[in-house]
């Protein structure tokens, strides 16, 4: 709101003001880090509990390189987390879409799935972890199923909304031109829900990422960012914990806003979700 005041006066496109405005968020994040660093160096805070950011960055850098323990440890943690995350998300997209279409398009689907979903949804996702540990075992499948549970509700919900939002006229047009049921499904419904599917995936990926980190803390036997920070707490290596948290934040932001956010922006401008409701 405060920017409006400045844009009223004519300014040349590349002004100092604009440069400052574009990097201002980064400065806002850097200042507390610098204060932390300074306080650590000066000895105002306990550097065992709050190691300065430079030390954290150094540890992460070393652990990601050939001198890590094991070599390239950070990369393996990140890779394993992403593998679990993407597998669970893919499962959620496939099964969530099928269930969403069943609820949105068919009477029996709505009758069967709606009560079941509203009974299961209020259970915190991570509460399933101990049960899955016994049913499935201590391996990647447990975390993948947790990711799947966390992401699928959002996917189902957005797809049902997407189908409800679709204009009935589109069906009339397709049917009046003699489209078969199969054609309506593949040529009308699937393209129609695709933008919603991407939105649902983006929302679901936020939940899924959170659940994954928790599940890895509780259930991973080796590798994964959640496992890394939990394991580090047992050895009290604080810089690994802080570095892991920073990686979790950065990767979560990257997945939700850059990876899927870009995809969402591209598809909404191409197909236009808001055309006719």
């Amino acid at each position, binding site marked *: 709101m405060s920017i409006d005041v400045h844009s009223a006066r004519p300014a040349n496109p590349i002004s100092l003001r604009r440069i400052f405005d574009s990097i201002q968020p980064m400065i806002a994040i850097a200042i507390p880090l610098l204060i932390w660093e300074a306080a650590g160096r000066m000895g105002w805070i306990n550097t065992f509990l709050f190691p300065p950011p430079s030390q954290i960055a150094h540890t992460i850098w070393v652990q990601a390189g050939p001198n890590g323990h094991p070599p390239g440890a950070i990369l393996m943690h990140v890779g394993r987390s992403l593998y679990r995350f993407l597998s669970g998300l893919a499962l959620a997209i496939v099964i969530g879409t099928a269930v969403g279409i069943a609820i949105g398009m068919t009477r029996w689907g709505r009758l069967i799935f709606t009560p079941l979903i509203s009974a299961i949804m*209020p259970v915190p996702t991570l*509460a399933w972890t101990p049960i899955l540990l016994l049913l499935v075992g201590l391996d990647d499948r447990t975390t993948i199923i947790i990711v799947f549970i966390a992401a699928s509700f959002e996917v189902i919900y957005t797809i049902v909304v997407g189908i409800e939002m679709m204009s009935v006229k589109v069906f009339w047009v397709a049917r009046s031109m003699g489209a078969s049921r199969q054609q309506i499904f593949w040529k009308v419904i699937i393209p129609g829900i695709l933008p919603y599917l991407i939105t649902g995936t983006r929302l679901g990926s936020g939940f899924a990422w*959170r659940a994954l980190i928790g599940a890895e803390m509780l259930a991973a036997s080796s590798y994964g960012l959640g496992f890394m920070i939990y394991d580090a707490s047992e050895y009290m290596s604080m810089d690994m914990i802080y570095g892991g948290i920073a990686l979790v934040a950065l990767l979560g932001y990257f997945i939700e806003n850059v990876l899927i956010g870009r995809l969402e922006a591209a598809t909404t401008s191409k197909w236009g979700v808001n055309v006719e409701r």
Partner: protein
Amino acid sequence: MSTSNSSALPGPGSAHARMATTIHIVSLLRFLAPIVAMLLVWEFCVRTGLANAAILPSPSMILVRGAELLGFSHADHSPLISHILYSLVRAMSAFILGCMVAIPLGFLLGLNAFAYRWVSPIISLMLPLPALAWTPIFLVIMGQSEATIVWVCFLGAVFPILYATIQGVRSITKQSLWVVRSMGARRRDIFFKVLLPGSLPALMAGLKLGMAHSWRTLVAAEMMAALSSGVGFMIFSARTYMDVSTMFVGIVVLAVIGMTIEHGLFGPLEKMTVRRWHNTGRVGGSR
């Protein structure tokens, strides 16, 4: 409507009411039918030996275990109730702590453009971070204790509430503030008559989300940091004894409490506050 009319027109009124209750019962049955059917299939699978009862107990076994934990046999001590109470106290104290920090801070950041510009990048970085990721730090500093659990849940609750408060305050148009100020309102009036009602819809949504986050985080935090009590602890410790029935009892309890918090607590609260101020005043553009 049917109650007010029934005295004047007893015939059609009562028929209407009966019809309404019938429709209500039918929709309730329709809602419960798939759940009951699934439980029956589950029970059947376990009874016939299709599923291993040691790993996947039947619903009837879970029910028996639930009754056992509730302690109908010895009335003075009920382990399940005490677990639930512990969990509720932790979640509520984290939530209240979160409100005490997030709401004043949210108003400050919503009203002060300078503070908003410098703090909002940090908040947007913290918002997507799972609160559970902080658990290891608290575990190192405070060990497995009540404080660890409450702090982790606090971090889960505080950011949604903060974010919603800021959005709510910023959605109030400048004009409505100018109008009230030009008519000579005091600072207190501006707060209670404009800012608070104007930001209330967003604030209520934030409180709801904050409580949900607090509750969802709590379960996992209890699994990692609780020593002897809490529903999360109950579920996780049952793993040691392969006591799957107790785990399922815990899951049912979590679902019921989660639903109660959302519909029983926040549903009426939302109706009460938002309706009270927003039907009468129409303050600001709260969109």
